[in-house]
């Protein structure tokens, strides 16, 4: 802070020009969270946090978001690798397709999923022919979460792979390594931090998914009612459970963001070392 002030006093420009507007935004971002924590920290917090609704929402959220992240890793890593290292016709279209869910409103995602994979959906008949009905199942929650969150993993991993020096790959190939060995022993470890930070981002997004879930998976306690859904519906049921769950999500998000910051700081150190 003092450093800032000194710089501006040289320009004869008062620092409050920067500080005042910033405080408005900081207040807007911070005060609601403070209020939430203030409301939550009553004697009933644990009653609400340990209520059956809260517990089943928490369990379901952890199960589905973890599954979504695993799917994102298993399918997103190869895709990111292809996008970062290979050149092919129509690559831009694929990149656009992957960026799209990040900016798309989740309600659009939910509607699109329902129209595609719903029972009467465009591909629904094929799915039911092989005995799969997605809507209103826990699997639908995972599909919705993966749809909105996996692109974040692909984006992060793609950058991670692209940043690796091409010469390393070439050297390994000269030494006789095949494509898989190059990936396994060179690319994967070197992109590790990018993959990890992509994982964290994906997980927070999956954990927070609401719009696509409520449209595609519906709302049933223990089956499709994740934490964000329980918060939304709890708002009308009495604020206690909603507030307790919100605080839990805020805490989880802070922890995950903290992990990501550490990872990012670590990766810059590595870059400087190189």
């Amino acid at each position, binding site marked *: 802070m003092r450093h800032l002030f000194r710089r501006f006093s040289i320009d004869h420009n008062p620092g409050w*020009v920067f500080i*005042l*507007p910033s405080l*408005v935004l900081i207040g807007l971002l911070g005060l609601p969270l403070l209020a939430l924590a203030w409301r939550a920290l009553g004697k009933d917090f644990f009653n609400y946090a340990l209520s059956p609704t809260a517990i089943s929402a928490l369990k379901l959220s952890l199960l589905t978001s973890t599954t979504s992240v695993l799917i994102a890793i298993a399918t997103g890593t190869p895709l990111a690798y292809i996008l970062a290292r290979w050149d092919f016709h129509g690559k831009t279209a694929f990149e656009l397709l992957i960026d799209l869910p990040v900016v798309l409103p989740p309600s659009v995602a939910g509607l699109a999923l*329902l129209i595609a994979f*719903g*029972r*009467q959906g465009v591909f629904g008949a094929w799915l039911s022919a092989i005995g799969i009905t997605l*809507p*209103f199942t826990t699997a639908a929650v995972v599909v919705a979460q993966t749809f909105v969150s996996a692109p974040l993993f692909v984006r992060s991993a793609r950058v991670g792979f692209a940043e690796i020096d091409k010469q390393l790959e070439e050297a390994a190939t000269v030494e006789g390594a095949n494509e898989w060995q190059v990936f396994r022993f060179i690319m994967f470890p070197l992109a590790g931090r990018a993959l990890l930070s992509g994982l964290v981002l994906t997980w927070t997004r999956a954990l927070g998914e609401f719009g696509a879930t409520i449209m595609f*998976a*519906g*709302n*049933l*306690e223990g089956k*499709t009612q994740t934490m964000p859904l329980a918060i*939304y*519906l709890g*708002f*009308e*049921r009495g604020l206690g459970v909603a507030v307790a769950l919100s605080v839990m999500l805020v805490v989880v998000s802070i922890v995950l963001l903290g992990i990501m910051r550490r990872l990012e700081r670590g990766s810059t150190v590595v870059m400087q070392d190189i």
Partner: protein
Amino acid sequence: MKRIALLVLLVAALLAACGPAATPTPASTAVPPTATPVPPTAIPEPRTLTVFAAASLTDAFTEIGHNFEAAHPGVTVAFNFAGSQTLSTQITQGAVADVFASANHTEMDKLVTGSLVQQAAPNDFVTNKLVVILPKDNPGNVTTLQDLARSDLKLIICDSTVPAGKYARQILDNMAKDPAFGADFKTKVLANVVSNENDVKLVVTKVQLGEADAGLVYISDSVSAPELKTIEIPANYNVVAKYPIAALTGALQPGLASDFIAYVLSADGQAILKKWGFTPVTP
């Protein structure tokens, strides 16, 4: 210096935006300053009447709103249709509205208790009952009410916080008391529920999409969606859903609010509601 002025302006705009919500929006009252001179008496003052109404009233109230606007030049009726429990929560949390029309007394009573409505005992303006709806191709092959307990069925109803969800559970209770259905009928039917929706129109949409084999909604909803198949629920199991209406104490247009309520209760208003499948209280 120019930049400072700009920033101050921005902050001022931000603070102004955070001001009391009761201030009428400039867009609705502003008259173009360079407009050609017109005798002031010719233009009625533009006013907006805000009506919070149960989702089941969507079609009927939209039509009533158009008629009301036609009869009151310069008046715009702005609707907020949602589950009554959502609306009562919004009003309790400070949403500004003129009229509240609820699908049950529970949500209206919350506002009466909080002194948020003008009357101590708001009038019922209409009643409704429930019906079973099926997608037009009836994928679950549902033909009787007993079929609702069949274990292979996917059923969508409203959440137990929503009036239509409360009524649906009452009806299941009533049926379970009848040996023709069996004491475990309610449990079996509720086990078939794949989603508890937040308002009745969401149930209709999902049944229309064919995502569920059946849904429990108001008979008025089936009038709005004529392509759906229906199974009637006999009166001895059915409920009489009473819809109360009241002007809110925080109304910005109290005069218009009572005019609107009077119109809803008038012969014209009741005829529109009847057309959309509701039962008028003044036959």
